[in-house]
Each structure stands twice: as C-alpha cells, then as structure tokens.
C-alpha cells in the first residue's frame, strides 16, 4: 500500500493561514491504514488546527469528510457540496489523491497535509517499510521476492556493495538489513543461489515512460 506521514503542524498552519473556512479531507484506503490520513486523523488534524488558530485569536472553521478513495474522481465528487462551502481544501490523501481533488475542483486551492513516502507494508504495528519502487520492470523473480531496487540503499542489481556492516546491516543505517544479505539467505534456503551468480545488465530506466500512463485490457 501507499505509505504517508503527516506534515509538521507548523507547515500545515502556515499553508492554512490565509483561510477562514477549509475542508479537511481524508482518504479511507492506504493512508487510513498507515495512520496518516483516515477519518480519525482528519478529526485530530481539524481539531488541532482549530485549537491552534483559536489560541492566536484567529478562528478557523473546518468541515470534515473522508471518502473511500481520494484517487478516484467518482468518489471525490461526493465532496462537491462541501468544497463549494470552503475557501480551500486540506487533503490527507497521498499525492495521487491530492491531485485528483485538485483536478476535480480546479477553482479551489488544495493543500497536502501529508508527505507521501513509499509503497510498503507493515513490519509490525506502527512500523512501515518500503517494498516496491514501482520501477515498471519487476525483478523479484530473480531475488527470492526481495526487491534490491528499493531495499538496497543504492539499488544495486548484482550483489552487495563493499560497505555492508558486520552482521549484514546496511552501510547507511545499522537498523536496516542489507537487502543483498537477505536475498542471499533466501535464495540459499531455496537452493537457488545460482540466480545470484547470474550477471544482470543495467536497468532499463525507461521501462515506464514517465509520466506513467497505462492502458489496461479488461480480462
């Protein structure tokens, strides 16, 4: 899923400074699961914003709404009436959701309240780790299902760098595992180390022509 983190309150306050009435809009999918932008987070942010503004003697009115997926126009359209009432929208969705909102309501400024960070999974409660770089040329069949493109700090395709720390930790962070040590162990366990001995030629960085646009064919 898409992982996001809430922006610092100061930054949000600054963005909202010119406005007296805003819609705080959440998304009920990815960002809700990673505790960044669901219904509960909308409620908390809206009340924090009101309190902060009230303390400054500059009240702000907040409307609150959360749609199931802010990256789908049909669902965002449900907010039409609420958007009409406000001067600006503060979106807690991922970058895709913020842009869907902005495209649908072109006359209203839409502000991001979260920083979209990566595609990942929960490692344990409250801890999310990056898993996929959406490179458009999936390599996981050769690496025992562990992506070196995002889980190796350098995105190396042919094995670990020389900076791996003792115990198989990453050069840049002793908290993170060296992806290539993980790949080695996984492939060893599966008796498929030959895959690691193969030479992989340079990546095709144009596998997805950016900006991405994919025409799916219905099954």
């Amino acid at each position, binding site marked *: 899923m898409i992982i996001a983190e809430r922006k610092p309150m100061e930054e949000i306050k600054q963005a909202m400074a010119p406005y007296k009435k805003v819609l705080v809009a959440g998304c009920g999918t990815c960002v809700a699961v990673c505790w960044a932008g669901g219904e509960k987070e909308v409620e908390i942010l809206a009340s924090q914003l009101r309190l902060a503004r009230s303390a400054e003697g500059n009240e702000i009115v907040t409307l609150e709404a959360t749609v199931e997926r802010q990256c789908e126009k049909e669902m965002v359209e449900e907010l039409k009436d609420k958007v009409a009432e406000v001067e600006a929208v503060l979106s807690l969705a991922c970058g895709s959701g913020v842009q869907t909102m902005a495209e649908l309501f072109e006359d209203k400024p839409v502000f991001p309240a979260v920083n979209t960070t990566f595609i990942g999974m929960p490692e344990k409660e409250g801890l999310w780790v990056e898993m996929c770089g959406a490179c458009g040329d999936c390599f996981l069949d050769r690496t025992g299902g562990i992506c070196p493109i995002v889980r190796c700090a350098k995105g190396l395709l042919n094995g670990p760098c*020389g900076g791996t720390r003792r115990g198989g930790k990453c050069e840049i962070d002793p908290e993170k595992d060296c992806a290539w040590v993980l790949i080695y162990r996984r492939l060893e366990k599966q008796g498929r180390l030959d895959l690691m001995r193969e030479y992989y030629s340079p990546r095709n960085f144009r596998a997805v022509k950016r900006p991405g646009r994919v025409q799916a064919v219905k099954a």
Partner: protein
Amino acid sequence: MATPFREILKTKDFVVTAEVGPVKGSNVSKAIEHIELLKDKVDGLNVTDNQSSVMRYPSLGICLLIKEHDGEPVFQVTCRDRNRLAIQADLLFAYSRGVSNVLCLTGDSIDVGDHKEAKQVFDLDSVQLIHLVHTLNSGKDMAGNELDGGIDFCIGTTATPSADPLEPQLIKVEKKLKAGVSFIQTQAVYELDELKRFTEFVRNIDEKVKILAGIVPVIGAKMAAYMNENVPGIFIPQHLIDELAQAPKGTGVSKGIEIAARVIKQIKEEKVCDGVHIMFIGREERVPEILEAAGLL
C-alpha cells in the same frame, strides 16, 4: 615516462600503489606535492572519486596532473554521481589524455558525505561498470554505436575480504572476475587470515588477476573505533586497537606506520598476495615512511 600499470602488473613480483586524495577547492599545489613525492616510489597513484561522498576536485583532474608530472594514474570511477552517458564520456576523455587505468567501484552512499540531500545516481553498479569499460574497449558504446577512436583501459576493481557475512560479497567478486579485471584492490585489511582466505577464493576462479591488499594505517585507538563505526567496509580488530591504545601519547602516527609496515612485510614475505595499495588519507606525505619501514624503498 612511467611504466604502464598493465606492464607492471605483468612483470613485477610485488606491486605497490598509493593514493592521492583530491583537494577541496581549486588549489592543487598540495596534490602536486604529493604526486612529486610519491610518483617514483610507487607503481601507480590512485585518485579517489569524491571519496566518502564528499565533493572535491575531480579524480580525472588529478589523474591529468599525475600524467603531466610523469606518474602513472589509476582513475577511480564510482557509480554514485554519474549516469552511463557521463561515465562513458569521462572514460573517453580520460583515455584520450593518456589515462589508461580505471578502478571500477560502486561508491559510498550519498548519506555518508557532505551533500546529504543530493540525488544519488547508481544508474550502474560496479559489475555493470566493468562490463561497460569492456564494451568501450571493444570499440562500441553501451548503445552499440561504433566509436571513432577506441580505448584500451587496464581494469581494476575493489573487494571487502573482511565482510560479514562474506559469502554474498564473494558472489559479487566472482561476477567481477567473470566480467574481467586485471587487478583487485581490497578494502583495508588488518587480519592476514582473512586476506589469505580471500586470495584463495579468487585464485580458484582466476589465476592471473593481481590482488593488492588495501593498507589503511590507523593512528590511534579512538580513530580506530571511529572508523569501525563510520567508515563503510572497515573492520579493525580489537587487538590492534589495544596495541594502539598502549602506544605512548604523541606516538600514534609512528605506531600506525609501524603496524602498517609490519603487515606489508608479512604479506610480502609470506607471498599472501601480489602487492599492496596504501591509503594514508590526509597524510600522503608520510607514505614514504611506511615504504621505508616495510623495506620497499
């Protein structure tokens, strides 16, 4: 004229190289001093490429200075700062100006350097970089286009014999050997057993490749602890840290030189590998003392 490094590798029993660290700024007088001091005492001078991800005068620039001063440069190329177009262009330029040795390495992460917010490139990895140089050597670029005026680089790479776990590193070394290299410069080695094990592994795959053991003198127990913590790929054993800690105050540098010379002598006497690469970062002017103490002058 300096003897081409390729010839040195073929003919010399014990090869010795050292490093010239590029300056931070445009004043190259210090680098020239180091070149003049070392060029006739060693077989080749390596020039680091924005070492430790710290922005400096370019590796290629210092390589040209070495050529101008009749030394034999080894052009270090990392994958961190340039994409495949830029690397190929730099290699063509280097060769056209007489720089004919290249050391292919991954490069430290941007996170360890002084421009931590920069975009790191890693369009290629070190194995792919070795293949790239062979492609250029064959008269074509990576896209398959013919080159007007080819190149013929002597190719080297790096390895970390003290990595833990070692096996994934060795698989990568195997790929580098299969890609084709004439020499390997190891990361700093402090334990000869590790170096012996590594050499044996390499010899089983490639009998001809020359292995130069990396020598990084350590000048104090605190520095050793710092390096263990902060310098990627460096593992200094506790007994050396203890030996350094016992050295009288103010004798750290000479102790470091003594230990380095001792290791070099042992490597040479026991024929553990084919030579050494001395990296005395920031103290290049004291490299001759190591050479002298190791009986290499």
